[in-house]
């Protein structure tokens, strides 16, 4: 475990001593800032309308601002996460530094977990940016904080699964573009599998069940559903397990 932390620390330093982290944080801040501004704008218009019309609409910050925004965070994540994971192994393989890691007395799994953990922490930094926005809602409004926390747990789990998949794909190639594009395509597919529920056939249900989105809904509503938690943890384990196998095969093939 100590070794995984060493790798994690080194990865975080790489993120923050190169422009990578700052560029991602800035872009993320701009994009999410716009989402927040637009969502809040719509909400305010809506409340004003409801007062003007004299009828009482139900007004709920959690339902009408926070929940759609957090769902959007997951969507933005879909675009940003491949950019975090694409370099994880591809870069090390291209520059040859993977030889240093693999010939050091540490286990493959420790390398993988360290790298994945660092990517998770970087994503948590991105999430912190969104937290800052929500603090304003707490200052001027009165939203419920518990569903918010649960939604964040869901977001972190979902990102963990996506990062594990991205880590695996990055371990397959030397080329960062290939790693990034493939990860993006796979994640999009996993996302839209939800749409296959138009059919009543058994396989359609299975496909829909595999979708990343379907399992985030309960978290977004502020409900912890064990099966969704298990789904994400399974994906994380699978992703990291396959990465380990891929690193092993790298040696046998190379």
């Amino acid at each position, binding site marked *: 475990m100590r*070794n995984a932390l*060493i790798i994690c620390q*080194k990865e975080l*330093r*790489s993120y923050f*001593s*190169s422009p990578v982290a700052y560029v991602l944080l800035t872009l993320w801040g701009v994009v999410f800032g716009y989402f927040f501004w637009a969502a809040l704008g719509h909400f305010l218009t809506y409340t004003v309308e409801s007062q003007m019309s004299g009828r009482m609409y139900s007004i709920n910050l959690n339902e009408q601002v926070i929940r759609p925004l957090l769902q959007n965070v997951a969507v933005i994540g879909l675009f940003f996460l491949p950019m975090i994971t694409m370099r994880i192994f591809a870069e090390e393989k291209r*520059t*040859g*530094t*993977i*030889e*240093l*890691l*693999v*010939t*050091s*007395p*540490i286990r493959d799994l420790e390398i993988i977990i360290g790298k994945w953990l660092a990517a998770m922490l970087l994503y948590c930094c991105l999430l912190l940016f969104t937290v800052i926005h929500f603090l304003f809602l707490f200052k001027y409004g009165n939203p419920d904080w518990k569903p918010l926390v649960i939604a964040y747990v869901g977001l972190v789990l979902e990102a963990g699964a996506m990062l594990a998949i991205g880590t695996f794909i990055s371990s397959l190639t030397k080329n960062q573009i290939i790693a990034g594009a493939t990860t993006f395509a796979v994640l999009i597919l996993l996302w839209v599998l939800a749409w296959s529920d138009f059919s009543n056939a058994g396989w359609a249900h299975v496909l829909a069940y595999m979708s990343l989105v379907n399992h985030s809904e309960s978290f977004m509503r502020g409900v912890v559903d064990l099966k969704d938690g298990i789904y994400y943890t399974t994906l994380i384990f699978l992703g990291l397990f396959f990465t380990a196998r891929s690193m092993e095969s790298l*040696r*046998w093939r*190379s």
Partner: protein
Amino acid sequence: MINVKELTKRYAHTTAVDHISFEVAKGQIVGFLGPNGAGKTTTMRMLTCFLPPSSGTATVAGFDVLEQPMEVKKRIGYLPETPPLYPEMETAEYLKFVGQLKGLSGAELQKRIDYVCERCSVADVRNKLLGKLSKGYRQRVGLAQAIIHNPDVLILDEPTAGLDPKQINETRDLIRSLAGSHTIILSTHILPEVEQTCEQVVIINKGKLVATDSVRNLQARARGAESILLEVGGRNGNLETSTVQQKLERVSGVSRVVCKHQVDSRAFFEVESQKGRKVRGDLARAVVESGWDLNELRPAAMSLEEVFLQLTGQDAPAEGTAAKGAQQQ
């Protein structure tokens, strides 16, 4: 210290390393010699547990590379062909990271960082980004990285590739100074490097072991037939080279005489003796008794380059007649 038996690495269509066996004693420097693509890097990668062998065994410090890779990795310092540097890290930061990977920590780690910085003369770039370093510094940081945990065995893949002559000399001195406390294997395709740095040579070609011996023995072995350089001068200002050549050819034990060139009344010959015959005295007498001056007579030392070309079965360069001569016998 290192024991390699019948080591083989097969890929789908090629055999990169084909049943190689050799041994390296503690504290020795061994040169791993071969043309590009001979399987040097593959062999080194198997020794460092980066690649598993297809068959055969290799043990480092008594530990098998397949059975106990962790123990092997702890005892090996490895410098791959391109130093494994992270461009966004600073030298000291990088050395600290590698030290931690190899299991060092705390005051001991700090001490080792100071030591290797001093030893590999990278102390003046401690706080520079690795991406900004010159090739020579990058190579030396790579070397510092390899010795940070004071490993028993050092494996260096072309440690002087791409350096300028001054840096090459410095790196060689550094490597030589590391021998004794470390067992060193270094690969190269530069022959003088082996002659200057190594005590023992392992020559491989196309994945096969061609020769393994000490540098001195190899040179002697290939020199079985002596090659001698002669400079003969005429006393009264003119010299018939053909006469001299005939005279030299008649000396017993001489197999071949080549006139290399002639300047005024001086002529330069290369004489090859038959294997095991000492002809230098007879040659000198023949020249002097015929009334010519013997300006110079010296054995043409066969460089490792010629030995190498001869052993790997490639054509010697045009002037390397000695190698050709040795092939004939």
